[in-house]
C-alpha cells in the first residue's frame, strides 16, 4: 500500500479567496499540475466523481472521456478503485492517434494495452479517509475547475508558493476579499506569507464574485 498522504489537521491553514470570475485562468496551471482532495478510500472512480465530487453521471459519461489513474488509462470506472495516495487525471476526448488510444472504451484501446488499468482488488479496508492528487486538463478546466476551487483543494506549501509567484501584477485588481483560518485578511497581509510559515499545507477555497462560470453539476 502507498504511504498515507493525509496531513495532520494542525499543519493545515485555510485560505478563502473572493475573486472576479474572469480571473479563473489564474488557476489553470495549478489545476493542471495537480492538487489534493480528501476522499473515502476504496471507492471506484465513478463513485468518487459522482458521489464525492458531486459531478452528474451524465457529465462524467459524456464529457470525461479520458481518465488516467496512476498513469494508467481507465476503461472501467467501476472497477478502478481510488486509494490513499492515488493520482487521478481527468480530460476530455483527445485528438491524434495516441489521444484516441487513451480514450475511455475507445476503439483503439489495444494500442495502449500495456498501460491500461486492469481494475483493483480490494486488499485494504474501504471507507477510510484518504487523500488523492487530482489533475484537470483541457476542456474540463473551465467546466469543473471552479467546482473544485469552490469546494476547496489542498496544496503543498511549495506548490502554493509557486502559484503565488505566478500571479500577474493585475491580480490586485481582481482581488475582492480573503480569509485566513476564518479571519479576514487583506491583500498586503496575504502577500507577506507570515500566515503560511508554520504550516505544511494550504486548504484553498475560492469564490468568484463576477459573472457565473460554466458549471458541470
Amino acid at each position: 500500500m502507498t504511504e498515507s498522504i493525509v496531513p495532520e489537521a494542525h499543519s493545515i491553514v485555510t485560505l478563502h479567496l473572493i475573486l472576479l470570475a474572469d480571473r479563473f485562468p489564474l488557476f489553470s496551471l495549478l489545476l493542471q499540475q495537480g492538487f489534493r482532495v480528501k476522499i473515502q478510500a476504496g471507492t471506484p472512480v465513478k463513485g468518487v466523481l459522482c458521489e464525492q465530487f458531486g459531478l452528474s453521471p451524465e457529465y462524467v459519461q459524456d464529457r470525461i472521456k479520458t481518465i488516467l489513474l496512476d498513469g494508467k488509462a481507465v476503461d472501467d470506472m467501476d472497477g478502478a478503485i481510488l486509494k490513499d495516495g492515488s493520482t487521478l487525471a481527468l480530460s476530455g476526448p483527445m485528438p491524434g492517434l495516441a489521444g484516441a488510444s487513451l480514450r475511455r472504451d475507445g476503439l483503439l484501446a489495444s494500442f495502449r494495452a500495456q498501460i491500461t488499468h486492469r481494475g483493483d482488488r480490494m486488499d485494504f479496508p474501504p471507507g477510510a479517509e484518504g487523500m488523492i492528487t487530482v489533475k484537470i486538463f483541457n476542456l474540463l478546466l473551465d467546466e469543473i475547475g471552479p467546482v473544485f476551487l469552490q469546494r476547496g483543494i489542498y496544496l503543498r506549501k511549495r506548490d502554493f508558493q509557486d502559484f503565488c509567484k505566478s500571479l500577474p501584477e493585475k491580480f490586485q485588481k481582481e482581488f475582492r476579499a480573503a480569509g485566513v483560518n476564518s479571519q479576514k485578511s487583506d491583500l498586503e497581509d496575504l502577500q507577506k506569507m507570515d500566515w503560511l510559515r508554520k504550516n505544511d499545507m494550504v486548504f484553498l477555497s475560492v469564490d468568484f464574485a463576477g459573472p457565473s462560470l460554466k458549471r458541470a453539476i
Partner: protein
Amino acid sequence: MKILRINMGAEGGPKAREEPMGEFEGLGGRALTSAIVAKEVPPLCHPWGADNKLVIAPGLLSGTTAAMSGRVSVGCKSPLTGGIKEANAGGQPSQMLARLGYAAIVLEGGPKGDKLYKIFINKDGVKITADQSLKMLGNYDLGEKMKKEYGEKVGLVSIGPAGEMKMSAASVAFTDMEMRPTRHAGRGGVGAVMGAKGVKVIVIDDTGMSMRPPKDAQKFNAANQKFIEGLKKHPVTGQGLPAYGTNVLTNVINEAGAYPTKNFMWGRFPACQKISGETQAETETARGGLATHGCHRGCTIQCSGIYTDKDGHYVTKQPEYETVWALGGNCEIDDLDAIAMLDRLCDDYGLDTIEMGATIGVAMEAGLAKFGDGQASINLLKEVGKGSYLGRILGNGAAVTGKVLGVERVPVVKGQALPAYDPRGIQGIGVTYATSTQGADHTAGYAVTANVLKVGGFVDPLKPEGQVELSRNLQIATAAIDSTGMCLFIAFAVLDQPETFQALIDLLNAFYGLNLTGDGVTDLGKKILKTEREFNKKAGLSAEHDRLPDFFMKEPLPPHNLTFQVKDEDLDKVFNW
C-alpha cells in the same frame, strides 16, 4: 485536371509543359505523388540526382468548397529514409493550384550550373526565372520579397537555406492565410530535393479562377453541410482543437507516461504544464495573439493560432504538439518563448521541427549543450541556418548527428526521427513507426476510421494482440485519406459519427460522379501502400528496416518501466492482407 512538368535540366534552361492526367486520372494527393514517383523514379537513384522527381499534388477535393480540403502532398525519393516519401502540409497553395487546374507539379531533371529559380504560375501559364538574389534567403524574407513583386494575394511554395544546402531535414514551406511560411511538408527531406532541382520558390496566383465545380452541386453542397455540422458538433474538432490546438495532448500523453523526455530517457516531463496547450492558449490570449485560427481558408476546425512575444509582436504560428514536444520536452525545455523562437527558426530556415528536436536531443546527450537550455538550442539551430560544419551535421538529422557524435540512443526508424509518442508506452503506435513506408511517422496510421471501414476485419479494441491488425488497418485508411486533401483531423468526427464518415464519401461521390463505398476507399489505401512498399523494396529497404531501434527493447521507460514488446515476426505480418 492536368499535370505540370518542369524539366529543370532541359537544354537552354528549364522548360515547362502540361500533360493530361493519362494513367494517373482519378488520383490526387498521396495516391498521385506515390504513383508518379513509383513509376518514374528509379528506386536506386541518388535523391539529389537528375533522376529523382519532386511531385507536389493537391488532394482530390482541393480547390472545391469542401471544408478542410486544403492539404497538399509532396513526394519524392527521400534523402533521409532512402525510400519513397510523401510529406503533406496545409496552407493556401493547395487550393490555388487545384483551382488553376493542376493535379500536380512535377519538378524533374537536374539543373545545369548553380542558378536558383523562381517559378510563377497563373491562369496565363508558367514563367521560370533565374534569380540569384534569392540565394540563402530565409522563408520569411523571401516571402516579403515576393510580396513586393507579386502582391499579397499569391501563395508560395518555397525552401529556406536548409533546402538550398540539401540538408536531409529540410522542409518545403507553404504560406498560410497571412502569406507567412508557416505550413511545412516537413518530413523526409523533401526540401533538399527541391533544392537539388534549383527551385527556390513557386509563386502561385489564382486570380481569375473560381472554385472547381462538382458534378452534382446539390448533393455536394448537402454533403458539405453535413460534414461541417459533424465537425462542429464533435468535442475534439468542435471544441478541443479550436480551443487549445494539437498541443492539448501534452498533459495527457505525459500523464500516461508516454511523453518522450530527455532524448527518450523518460516517459514524463515534470514541467510539462508550463508548455501544455492549455498554458500556451492562455499565454497567446493574454498577450493579444490568437489561440484559435485556421491554416487555410475553408478550415472549420481552426486548430492553429498566433504566438506573440511579451510585447505582442508576432513570433510564429501556434507551435503544434509535435513541435512543442520535440523542441521542448524532448530537450527538457519548459520555456514556451524559447520553443516559439525555435519553431520560427525552423520555419525560416525550412526545417522539419520533429527531426530538429530529435537531433538537438541527441546533440544534448552528446554534451553539445545542456538539457533544458533553450538559448543553447537556439544557438545550435542558428548553426544550421548558417551552414557551418556543425550546422550541416545537425541539419542532416538525428541519425547522422548520432553517428558523428557517437550517441547510441538515436530515436529513428529508416533514418527518420520518431514523433512525440514513446512506443514503449503506447505500443500500437510503435508498430506503425516500425513498419510505415515513410519511416517513423505518427500520421502514417492516423486515420482512426479503421474500425468504421472495418478494413481487414473488425479489431477488438480491448485485446492487446490487436495492435498489428489495427496498425495495418489504420495505415490503409490513412493512405486513402491522404489522397483526398482532407486534413487528418477530420478523422475524430468520422470515427465517432458514422453520418460524418458518410458525408465524406458523399462529398467525393458528388464531386466526381462516383459510387465509391467504404470498400473502394480501402482498395485505394491498399494500392497506395503496395506501390510504396514495392518502391522501397527495390530501393533496398527490407523487413530488417521495419524495426525500432534496439534501445526500445532494452531500456525500460519510467514511470511504467516498459520495453517495446511486439515481436519481430508480428511486425512482419503488418502488410499481410
